[in-house]
């Protein structure tokens, strides 16, 4: 069962309450999104660790309900 952009954003926010989240629906099928997530929680973490934090937020949904998530992560400007 596909996931809505709202659900995706909500799940990310639950795990990363301070996050700035930008979701782009790539195909309108609830299966292909791009997400840009900025959070202070990423500070000092490698890209792989940052992306894993977002995948963990989706509680196993990544690869099942959600086929594709083009992900970009970052730390807030004032945290760098």
């Amino acid at each position, binding site marked *: 069962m596909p996931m809505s952009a709202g659900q995706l954003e909500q799940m990310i926010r639950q795990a990363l309450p301070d996050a700035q989240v930008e979701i782009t629906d790539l195909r309108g099928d609830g299966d292909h999104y791009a997400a840009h997530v900025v959070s202070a929680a990423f500070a000092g973490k490698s*890209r*792989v660790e940052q*992306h*894993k934090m977002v995948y963990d937020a989706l509680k196993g949904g990544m*690869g099942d309900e959600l086929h*594709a998530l*083009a992900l*970009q992560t970052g730390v807030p400007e004032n945290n760098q």
Partner: protein
Amino acid sequence: MSDTDNQIKSEIDGADVVLFMKGTPVFPQCGFSGQVVQILSHIGVAFKGVNVLEDDGLRDGIKTYSNWPTIPQLYVKGEFVGGCDIIREMFEEGELRPYLAEKGISLLSDAE
């Protein structure tokens, strides 16, 4: 360690650069796998493609092994580097070549 884990480990240890992908380097069967193949070919790095579509056990096993939920997955000298997003970002930020050089991976373009 399960048979699948042993299989994965031997693939990862069997070559310097290993790409677990959908399809083959010549015929990628997924856009994301195809993008990584393009990047690796563009910078001229030799790599081994492992087609996870040929073995469902491998397709799921690699996600557990690396604790990464998607395919493709790139390994360099036994280390998980990332999936399509991370490899593309490393390439676009000019980090991929230095990373490979640091790991002692020669690029075909070096030989020119």
